[in-house]
């Protein structure tokens, strides 16, 4: 499978649609970044992904991660490739320069993450988990812990893992049982079993830094009694050298549908030495800081898969000769026409493309909001951006991965029966993409988060502000695109009315919001994509090809909003009335 990073679209988004340079100039942390550096990073990243990482994707799936006597080995080529990206400084791309990170804006690094996921989901997860763990350490750990661990994580010398889920506690972390016993030296002893730990053990790095959620002996029950601990696989001596093996081991790997090159471990903590990160009982909050980044990253997995599937499907559709085009032979010399001339094949391809490009634009937008929230000197700007991040992260995670999965299924469909065959790569993308709808909070959980915590909790105010932003931006677009503007404004009013209705209904019916949440999230996603498609076509009205893509989105995909709106408004009784024993 050949991967070519969609650099032209990426540059267009950064430079033209979102005018990154203008924003960076306002943020001292990024003021030094110029467009040459950005270009060089994108091009080098693209090369690394196509030449080093993508070639390990199929073999990684066939070989899978293996465990023997508690030692996990990754597929052939993974350790070398990891060394290469570590040496290039790619693991610490967004890390704090004070600890050896590259300090690059999220708005840019989301694009590199997409390339990584396109090239190889399994491989990328080891990188993503390391960045996520580093982020939580950076935000909440003591300076001593930061000094000890961050430089080695940013440099790719050590990796990271997040240990949250237990066999009986997944979406409901409040019921977890892992214990942490305080020791005289201020360290803790951690005991318990964690499951579904991505990169819990592997042979890519000499050490692995686990972030573990556990309960102190005096902890209250429920989510308010959970603390966060840093538990290294190998203890670190005071001089920074590696010391004794800690009592944390992988006891098994899961056999999974996909992401087989990524080790999904059962981790046993048998009195392992750990250090508290942040305050007692504040572990979930600490974990949630990083969660926005992780959720966005997992969302981007959806985009990466969708893009790769599109590239494979287009290549096939141009080569495969089958049937004659309805409008007359397109390849009269050949026995049949390339299938890209059939309207229904184009529908599949363009649907993928329309989701991918809008998702990419939305990822850059959310990346920008994260940057503004963290680095902008103006307080009001950071507050507003932080609200946007909180509001939009669940949408990004769930909508990217739902649409990314759909895109992969469509890309598989283009290949017909050949899409079902492993060698052709399309079925692997479906299998790999499927997990992204589940982990980091299932998309059902994302939808609950959006509607309950991010919309209803503030009486719909955050959503109202964001709709206003979309509307104002839309009114600035060139009158050439009047019908698209009209469609965006209509979608905005549908969303506004629905939000108001839900705010009102919520007071009367507790189940309503939960029954509406998934469909509501998709309506929000569609409205945003309509806005972003308009923005993409209106930024450069001369680009008539992009206008064709935009028209496709408005004409053929946006109508889904009507079905969703009707489903939400049907209310909760339809899902709640059936007695449990009648299912």
């Amino acid at each position, binding site marked *: 499978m050949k991967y070519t990073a969609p650099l032209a679209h990426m540059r267009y988004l950064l430079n033209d649609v979102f005018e990154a340079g203008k924003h960076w100039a306002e943020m001292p942390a990024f003021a030094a970044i110029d467009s040459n550096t950005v270009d060089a990073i994108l091009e080098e990243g693209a090369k690394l992904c196509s030449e080093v990482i993508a070639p390990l994707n199929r073999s990684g799936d066939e070989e899978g991660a293996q465990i023997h006597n508690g030692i996990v080995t990754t597929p052939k080529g993974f350790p070398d490739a990891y060394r290469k990206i570590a040496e290039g400084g790619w693991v610490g791309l967004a890390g704090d320069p004070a600890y050896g990170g590259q300090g690059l804006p999220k708005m840019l690094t989301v694009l590199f993450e997409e390339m990584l996921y396109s090239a190889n989901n399994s491989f990328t997860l080891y990188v993503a988990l390391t960045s996520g763990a580093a982020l939580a350490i950076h935000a909440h750990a003591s300076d001593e812990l930061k000094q000890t661990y961050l430089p080695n994580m940013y440099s790719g010398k050590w990796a990271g893992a997040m240990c949250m889920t237990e066999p009986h506690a997944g979406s409901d972390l409040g019921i977890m049982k892992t214990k942490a016993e305080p020791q005289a030296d201020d360290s803790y002893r951690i005991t318990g079993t964690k499951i579904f730990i991505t990169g819990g053990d592997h042979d890519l790095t000499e050490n692995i830094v686990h972030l573990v959620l556990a309960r102190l002996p005096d902890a209250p029950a429920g989510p308010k009694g959970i603390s966060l601990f840093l538990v290294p696989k190998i203890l670190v001596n005071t001089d920074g050298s590696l010391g004794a093996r800690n009592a944390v081991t992988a006891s098994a790997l899961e056999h999974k549908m996909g992401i087989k090159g990524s080790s999904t471990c059962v981790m046993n903590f048998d009195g392992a030495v750990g250090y508290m990160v942040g305050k007692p009982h504040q572990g979930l909050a600490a974990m949630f800081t990083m969660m926005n980044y992780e959720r966005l990253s997992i969302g981007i997995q959806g985009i990466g898969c969708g893009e790769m599937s599109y590239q494979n499907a287009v290549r096939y559709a141009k080569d495969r000769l089958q049937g004659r085009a309805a409008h007359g032979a397109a390849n009269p010399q050949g026995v049949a026409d390339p299938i890209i001339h*059939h309207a229904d094949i184009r529908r599949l391809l363009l649907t993928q493309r329309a989701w991918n490009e809008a998702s990419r634009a939305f990822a850059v937008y959310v990346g920008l909001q994260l940057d503004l929230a963290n680095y902008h000197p103006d307080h009001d700007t950071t507050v507003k951006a932080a609200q946007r991040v909180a509001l939009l992260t669940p949408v990004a995670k769930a909508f990217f991965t739902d649409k990314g999965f759909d895109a992969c299924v469509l890309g598989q469909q283009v290949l017909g029966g*050949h899409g079902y*065959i492993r060698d052709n790569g399309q079925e692997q993308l479906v299998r790999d993409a499927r997990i992204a709808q589940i982990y980091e909070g299932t998309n059902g959980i994302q939808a609950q988060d959006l509607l309950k915590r991010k919309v209803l909790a503030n009486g719909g105010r955050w959503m109202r502000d964001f709709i206003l932003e979309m509307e104002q931006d839309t009114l600035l677009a060139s009158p050439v695109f009047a019908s698209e503007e009209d469609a965006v404004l209509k979608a905005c009013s549908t969303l506004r009315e629905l939000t108001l209705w839900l705010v009102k209904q919520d007071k009367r019916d507790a189940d309503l919001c939960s029954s509406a949440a998934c469909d509501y999230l998709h309506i929000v996603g569609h409205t945003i994509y309509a806005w972003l498609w308009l923005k993409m076509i209106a930024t450069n009205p001369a680009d008539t090809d992009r206008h*064709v893509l935009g028209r496709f989105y408005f004409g053929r995909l946006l*109508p889904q909003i009507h079905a969703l709106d009707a489903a939400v408004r049907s209310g909760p009784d339809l899902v*709640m009335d*059936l007695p449990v024993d009648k299912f």
Partner: protein
Amino acid sequence: MPAYRAPLRDMHFVMNELLDASSHYAKLQGCEEVTPDLLAAIIDSGAKFAENVAAPLNAIGDEHGCKFDNGKVTTPPGFREAFQQYGEAGWQALGIPAESGGQGLPTSVGMCVNEMIGGANWALNMYAGLANAPVTCLIHGGNEAMKATYLPRLVSGEWGGTMCLTEAHCGSDVGLLRTKAVKNADGSYTVTGNKIFISGGEQDITPNIIHAVLARIEGAPKGTKGISLFIVPKVLLNPDGSLGERNAVHCGSIEKKMGNKGNATCVMNFDGATGFLVGEPNRGLNCMFTFMNSARIGTAIQGIAHAERGFQGALPYAKERLAMRSLSGKKNPDGAADPIIVHPDVRRLLLTAKVFAEGGRMLVHYLARELDIVQHSADKAAQDAAEDRLALLTPIAKAFITETGFEAANCGMQVFGGHGYIAEHGMEQNVRDSRISMLYEGTTGIQALDLIGRKVLLNGGVNLNLFLDEIDTFCTGNASHSEFTAPLAELSKEWRTLTGELGEKAVANMDEAGAAAVDYLMYAGYVTQAWLWARVVVLASTKGDADGGFYQAKIHTARFYFQRILPRTRAHLGSLRAGSASLMAMPEALFIF
């Protein structure tokens, strides 16, 4: 994987209550003996086979897969014995006419058994399903000698069979196929060529495999009008009927696939193999299509199978798994949390899987009934009407039920959260296995083109209008159930209108039909399901809370379908009305990366 339980209560409901099996069979020639008791006995014994023999091999089949070594294929442990039991129990013979050595039961009875065994283990079921390919071809085109030679041992399950159609360069476009047949002095043919994606092309289950092969006789016209059908046995027969020489047909390799791993998907090389012409030269596709039409309904059953499996797998998990509290107050105050079935979003997933399993079942068994009429009715007008109805609804059933079956399988998996992604729970296998159903036997896109082209526009909308007239009559006759019949009548009207619009657009631009096809098919599928669910409501509302609330549950489910699923017609309508311009405008070169 959770145990498979045959959905007997629902099957009984669909067959006997909704479709009134006893008066249906009474009207068919030679089917009078199919009383409700006999039907129940057959279904029960099929259920036992499905639950006790087929289901336990499902995960094993996936895990072991088929192995290929030097031309030989080894199927997963237990498959051979299960297939033997299948044949011995008479399941292979069930729907085959008595004069061909079968039990002569109506097709609809076989479909019930097929759904259960397929639901239990699709990969295993396919060996039996494909053995029907040469059977059907022979029944419709074979001469008496051929029938006598092959049918008894195919029908008894002693031998397997295949359908060899696809070649590396031709799948949807059969007209491109190249496999050659040269006539020999003795009237047989020498068949040479390569076929791919041949399900059960080689296996270690039966001592002989009878391939139904499409090939071109030397000098045949190009395209689809030059294709003939041949029977090519893996092992040639001696004059006394005993197994003789190995024929020159060999398996070159098997495919590594996403799922359905217990069923061997073979590359078959015909290197001058001896074959026997079935039917007239150059008329092979007609003969094959007889099989393919019923095979398409057979594939639709796969959609039900995976929807049912997704639902059955998810339900006990949703009742047992404790996570968080119900929003409307604790439901399990003594536990650490409530079972997740109290959460509306989990219910949405379960109900979605449920409506697609039950809805698919209604449509398939409705079509099976039409097949019975075509095959067994003495009334020519009834036969023609059934034929027309089948023509219209078969592509809808195949594509819609497999698409929604995949969705339902995914819903079932989603209920499990991260555990759904792990092999041991079987939910991810169910998703992988179901994915093929939208690809083989004509992709969803091909079904949609068949529907909108051949079945609707080229037919001048005649069949469609008859169907919609029936829906309208039903709605008028049941106006008291206006919650369901009023929106259904509106949709029927809209379906007519949009078909007219499309017809006009397609005259001006042929791409319009292709551009609208899949949205049109899905729209049609949702409305057809709405009609069936409305019929369920009319029936169930006369039963009160009989049978432990079974009928009340049906009404709840129908209401869920109407209000939360049926609005999807709005999306498909909007999309198909947008026309072809945005699809066709982008130059090929600009599909760049």
